[in-house]
């Protein structure tokens, strides 16, 4: 006894189409692939560090993005980027629906390339259906095998390109060819090859309908003004429903007279759909708003000289004959937050300090009484050089009355690019001069550049135990 516990996939063989949206989608695809595959190979001159424009250096804990070097402690920028990505998604989806799904999602982009390969090897929709239904033969095996082989090649290149972002591209490729690359490089490449192959080649629209959470939760971001790909039911169905163009129903006037709409039920819109749905059934969660059915329908409408846009980008409100509003409170709200998040992130990146001074007070012991009655506090000072040139600097303190600072070396310190140094600092003060148990003061790092001097200031605290404070003594 066999029972089916899941919905078996109904194979989809999308037909090719040309038109405005098809051209737009191919342009985006070309751009995205160009950036993704070529970016790791782009060289970039730096005074120090790798000469690769985009390089995620895990071991060095630095991300190189053109002229920006992101350190591990800047990781909150990633949080900012994710917040922006989320807000942008809400903002765009509220206005124009599933734009990301239809045009930019990597699942859509890679599935499209895999479909192109399929069409190149196996032919157009009808030929593919025929091949699918044909019994296994050497000819079928050859075609299917070639398709899978080419898919595997695309998948492999995809996985490899991803890996190249985490290493020096030319070196890593030669290492991988010689079997000398680190294990994670192979593992990442293989994993992404496998997932690309399975997701774009085999799972396809099931990823969108069953796996992707975004596909499901974006419905809550829709409102009556959101742009959707929709079929003009009133025009298409007329009073007596759609109808194939029979003998008496060729001319538009005849059809109107007979009460039939403009839809000639050619099925082209269904055949081009990558998720295999019929847009004429209304809004469906499977629809990724790729707009290929618009291209398909317009091609037919043009050929029979009917007006275009029987299927078109519209909104629920427009379908009711009203005007679509773009600037509603929701979009304005998301827009304001989006703008604020972007300004904050850009400000944070632009105003980042390239020389970091960190001071940590040693707490065990917090204060030490010296033989001459002075109180000594000890600090661990860390200087981080995030610039691309060697730093010369001096450290001194301000704001602590008659206190001495001692470090191992009195001379000007030198710090190589992208390096950090930490050294102990002792500060001594006679308790007569202490005004409180906790005195706030500043460490001043003075950079002696040839042209100008830069100061980095860090607040710290000097601690004098209460019993040593002169004011407290009897």
């Amino acid at each position, binding site marked *: 006894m066999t029972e089916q516990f899941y919905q078996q996939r109904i194979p989809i063989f999308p037909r090719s189409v040309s038109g405005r949206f098809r051209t737009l989608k191919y342009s985006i695809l070309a751009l995205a692939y160009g950036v993704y595959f070529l970016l790791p190979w782009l060289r970039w001159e730096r005074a120090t560090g790798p000469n690769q424009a985009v390089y995620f250096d895990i071991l060095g804990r630095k991300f190189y993005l053109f002229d920006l070097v992101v350190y591990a402690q800047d990781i909150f920028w990633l949080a900012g980027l994710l917040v922006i990505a989320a807000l942008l998604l809400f903002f765009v989806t509220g206005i124009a629906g599933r734009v990301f799904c239809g045009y930019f999602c990597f699942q859509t982009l890679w599935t499209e390339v895999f479909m192109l390969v399929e069409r190149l090897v196996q032919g157009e929709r009808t030929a593919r259906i025929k091949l699918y239904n044909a019994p296994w033969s050497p000819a079928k095996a050859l075609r299917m095998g070639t398709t899978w082989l080419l898919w595997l090649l695309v998948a492999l290149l995809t996985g490899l390109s991803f890996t190249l972002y985490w290493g020096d591209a030319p070196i890593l490729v030669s290492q991988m060819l010689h079997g000398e690359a680190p294990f994670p490089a192979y593992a990442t490449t293989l994993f992404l090859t496998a997932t690309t192959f399975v997701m774009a080649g085999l799972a396809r629209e099931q990823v969108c309908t069953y796996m992707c959470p975004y596909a499901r939760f974006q419905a809550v971001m829709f409102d009556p003004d959101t742009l959707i790909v929709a079929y003009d039911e009133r025009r298409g169905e007329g009073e007596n429903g759609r109808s194939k163009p029979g003998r008496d129903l060729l001319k538009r006037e005849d059809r109107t007279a007979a009460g039939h709409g403009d839809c000639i039920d050619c099925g082209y819109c269904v055949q081009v759909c990558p998720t295999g749905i019929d847009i004429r059934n209304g809004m469906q969660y499977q629809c990724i708003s790729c707009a290929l059915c618009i291209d398909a329908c317009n091609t037919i409408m043009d050929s029979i000289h009917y007006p275009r846009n029987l299927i078109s980008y519209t909104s629920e409100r427009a379908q009711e004959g009203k005007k679509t509003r773009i600037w509603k409170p929701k979009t304005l709200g998301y827009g304001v937050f989006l703008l604020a998040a972007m300004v904050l992130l850009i400000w944070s990146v632009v105003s980042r300090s390239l020389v970091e001074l960190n001071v940590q007070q040693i707490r065990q*012991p917090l204060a030490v009484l*010296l033989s001459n009655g002075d109180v000594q506090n*000890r600090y661990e000072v860390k200087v981080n050089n995030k610039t691309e040139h060697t730093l010369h600097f001096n450290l001194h303190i301000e704001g602590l009355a008659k206190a001495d600072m001692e470090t191992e070396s009195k001379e000007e310190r030198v710090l190589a690019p992208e390096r950090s140094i930490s050294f102990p600092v002792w500060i001594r003060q006679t308790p007569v001069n202490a005004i409180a148990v906790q005195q706030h003061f500043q460490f001043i790092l003075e950079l002696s550049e040839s042209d100008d001097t830069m100061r980095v200031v860090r607040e710290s605290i000097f601690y004098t135990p209460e019993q040593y404070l002169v004011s407290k003594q009897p």
Partner: protein
Amino acid sequence: MSKENTKPTVQTTGHAWDGDLQEFNNPLPNWWLWSFYATVVFAVIYWVLYPAWPVGRNYTKGVMNDITYTTSAGKTVTTHWNTRAALMQDLQAARERQKPYLDQISKASYNEIAKDPEKSAFAYSMAKVLFADNCAACHQTGGAGVIGLYPNLADDDWLWGGKVENIEATIRGGRKGMMPAFGKRLSETEMDDLSEHVLSLSGNKVDAAKELRGKALFEGSAGCFACHGKDAKGQASMGSANLTDSIWTIANVPGQTTLEGKKAEVKKVIFNGISREMPTWKGRLSDTEIKMLTFYVHELGGGK
């Protein structure tokens, strides 16, 4: 009896007990079954690769590669795969990675270590652990010590000298701190006078007449000057304390606010004397470890 329960739609195992007692055949889901088979296969592979079955007093060793490592005593051991040997191998690898640094440290002078940021950073971080393991039990994590028991290593007063060679000698050989008890040799008044004088040395305001009597005792019949010196500044060669500075290691003078309290603390020390000991670390720590510890203690704040 239970005719309502018979569901003809569900397959049964085909047996019937007591006339109509039957068993449904609800097979496991395939993914479950195959996961089970996979674990069986995994177990068999595991038995082959790793130590697994007891055989009499022995056990199967597995065919995983043997592990060879050198113990810290220099003995080379080869054994079948086991986690203890894997750990020993890791430790050996770590020792080998540290060796070039340790060699550099053992060759370098204290001055060279201090001048080279890489060497000093290595010595500092190694010694921090050594200090926590060996010294912090008495001297506390930051070297602040415990007043009355263990000297503070973070201040600039040293019983046995604060130069690196003094510190190294202290760690290497240990120290015996000793002051005789005067409780039976001096009268109560004498001890009172003496403590007034001792407190006056570090700038405390005391009774002038008593102090003068105490001074006579200090420099005369009580014999304090023999160890602490005529100027009461102590002698590093014998570990006698400098009584003229603000640092107290036994008598908790800084913890007292009144003169009477301070005097009581000092008198307690005169009465009981001192007998304390720091153990020797020679033989327990290597020369390089002692060197790094010396550097660390010198860095704690008061090194001279």
